């Protein structure tokens, strides 16, 4: 990548003997919206704190706009940060919160005023400037927290699970606003979350992390359609992917009585003969339709969810979920004919769990 906005090279972080981040490399482009996604404890927040300079790294380097900032103070790195708990200074007004850092940097009064006005206009918090954080709603507080990053007039924004403390509806609204904000400002944004919907909707690229390592770094589409390993395949998508364990032989996936023709599957390399996992997403199942592969199943459980219906059945003794239309008339005990296109499936090696 040319002129990356943020570049992380061979980053290690240890707490005592526990390695949180292991030889991590990551380049983030100018104006890119990158989401760090993973379960709790995967090191995503730790990585963000390292970029911010709030944690000292054990080894490796961090560059922001081609400047080596590995040893710089957080305030000198050209970043703004938004925290999960908002971290607003409770005794100061919104204006006080926005200006405290600038005043401290001895910025001329006039410029401070201009920046605050601009940030307040962008975030539509002008009427709130003289209130204290305690008098604001969760969404308003979050906006002020973003404003505090905005007035710093920096190139890189860091978000540490900024929407986690909000209720579901507000979260959806602010998600859209964040996206609009990024469209407007075109800053580099690095965003940590454990919510895959946020990741899928916001990101230009997603980095999925596990145990201090990046499992996959790709566009949301690519991660959804072509997960590089079984962990990523299982982690992305809700409800998660159906898996069968079996053998690949002669272009066929065989698991017990089940046999799936893999002619349409796009193998990374030559079709191997190996034990493997076969994965197919519940939403890629078709009912009563022509499909390259089809099977007869009996319905065990029906979970109507309004917009769609989740049906539980068994194939070959393995629990199997699929999604139907919300209006579908199915009930327990019904016999259905289902099918899917193996081209939409994912195959993973049984031992390495890597995509085949």
């Amino acid at each position, binding site marked *: *990548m040319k002129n990356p906005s943020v570049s992380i*090279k*061979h980053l*290690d972080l240890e707490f005592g003997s526990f390695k949180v981040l292991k030889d991590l*490399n*990551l*380049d983030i482009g100018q104006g890119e919206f990158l989401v760090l996604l993973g379960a709790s404890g995967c090191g995503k927040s730790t990585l963000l704190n390292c970029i911010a300079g709030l944690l*000292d*790294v*054990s*080894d*490796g*380097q961090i*560059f922001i706009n081609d400047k*080596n900032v*590995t*040893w710089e103070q957080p305030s000198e790195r050209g970043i703004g940060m938004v925290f999960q708990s908002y971290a607003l200074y409770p005794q100061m007004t919104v204006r006080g919160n926005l200006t405290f850092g600038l005043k401290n940097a001895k910025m001329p009064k006039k410029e401070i005023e201009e920046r605050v006005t601009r940030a307040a206009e962008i975030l539509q918090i002008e009427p709130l400037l003289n209130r204290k954080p305690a008098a604001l709603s969760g969404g308003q507080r979050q906006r002020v927290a973003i404003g505090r990053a905005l007035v710093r007039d920096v190139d890189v924004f860091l978000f540490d699970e900024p929407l986690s403390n909000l209720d579901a509806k507000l979260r959806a609204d602010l998600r859209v606003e964040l996206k609009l904000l990024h469209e407007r400002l075109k800053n580099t944004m690095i965003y940590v979350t454990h919510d895959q919907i946020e990741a899928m909707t916001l990101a230009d690229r997603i*980095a999925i992390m596990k145990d201090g*390592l*990046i*499992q*996959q*770094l*790709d566009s949301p589409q690519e991660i959804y359609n072509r997960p*590089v390993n079984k962990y990523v395949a299982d982690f992305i998508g809700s409800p998660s992917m159906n898996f069968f364990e079996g053998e690949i032989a002669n272009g066929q996936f065989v698991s017990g009585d089940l046999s799936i023709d893999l002619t349409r599957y796009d193998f990374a390399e030559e079709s191997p003969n190996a034990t493997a996992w076969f994965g197919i997403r519940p939403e890629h199942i078709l009912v009563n339709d022509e499909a390259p592969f089809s099977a007869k199943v009996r319905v065990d459980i029906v979970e109507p969810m309004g917009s769609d219906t989740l049906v539980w059945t068994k194939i070959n003794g393995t629990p199997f979920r699929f999604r139907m239309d919300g209006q579908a008339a199915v009930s327990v005990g019904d016999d259905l004919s289902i099918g899917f296109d193996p081209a939409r499936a994912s195959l993973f090696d049984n031992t390495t769990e890597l995509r085949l």
Partner: protein
Amino acid sequence: MADASATNSDVTTMSGPRGRKPTRMLTPRNIMLYGTLFVIAVYYLLPLYVMVVTSLKGMPEIRLGNVFSPPVEITFEPWVKAWSEACTGLNCDGLSRGFWNSVRIMVPSVAISILIASVNGYALANWRFKGANIFFTILIFGAFIPYQVMIYPIVIILREMGLYTKLSGLVIVHTVFGMPILTLLFRNYFSSIPEELFKAARVDGAGFWGIYFQIMLPMSLPIFVVAIILQVTGIWNDFLFGVIYTKPENYPMTVQLNNIVNSVQGVKEYNVNMAATLLTGLVPLIVYFVSGKLFVRGIAAGAVKG
């Protein structure tokens, strides 16, 4: 770049700062910080040191030196004398009498006050009944009333009960004045136990005492330890109640210590005095150093007691 492994290839090791920012141990800030802490620590430890060294010196050596000079000839005689021979105004059998009095006061006081307060806190937390909160509020406010306001009427009450100057009377006094803080401690703790557990036990047919003994008690050992620490140090260190509600042969250790050291008769034996002081402080000090974090938890809760 397709995936993470691909990024590895185009990373070239670059010059410039890398890894942990080198920090020197001897920055001006660290020197200031640790230096100040060290000096203050010495100041806090000094009295303990003075007590120890003085109690190990003979009187001639004390007259020649100062309070900080370490003993040249270590002698344990002051300790023996403080324990078994030192004189108050009335008798000359040392602190041992006070020690055993304190034990006889402390053990039942701790046991009874904690038993009553724990049941009480449990009743307040889980069996709210009409008026309970009024009494509890009075109790908490009572913790702020200076003891001096209440001591004389209590003398009258104890006299009427025939317990004035008796150890059992002092046990009642300690139970009464320990009640606000202990009740608060237990009430808060029992309130923090999920109510579902209590409801489940009631559905299963357990009654007031059944739930207390079979469910609450086994779950609350730590808070009992905190309460015991709080009460042992508090009652052991009490002076006011001891001097008011007992007579000289029943005086607790603190009162006797004060009488020994501040008695005007005879020559001042500073080494014996310091040995006696150290002996009296030993019980709470041992409790303190053994209990560690639990002590901190106890005082944070007991701070209200003032």
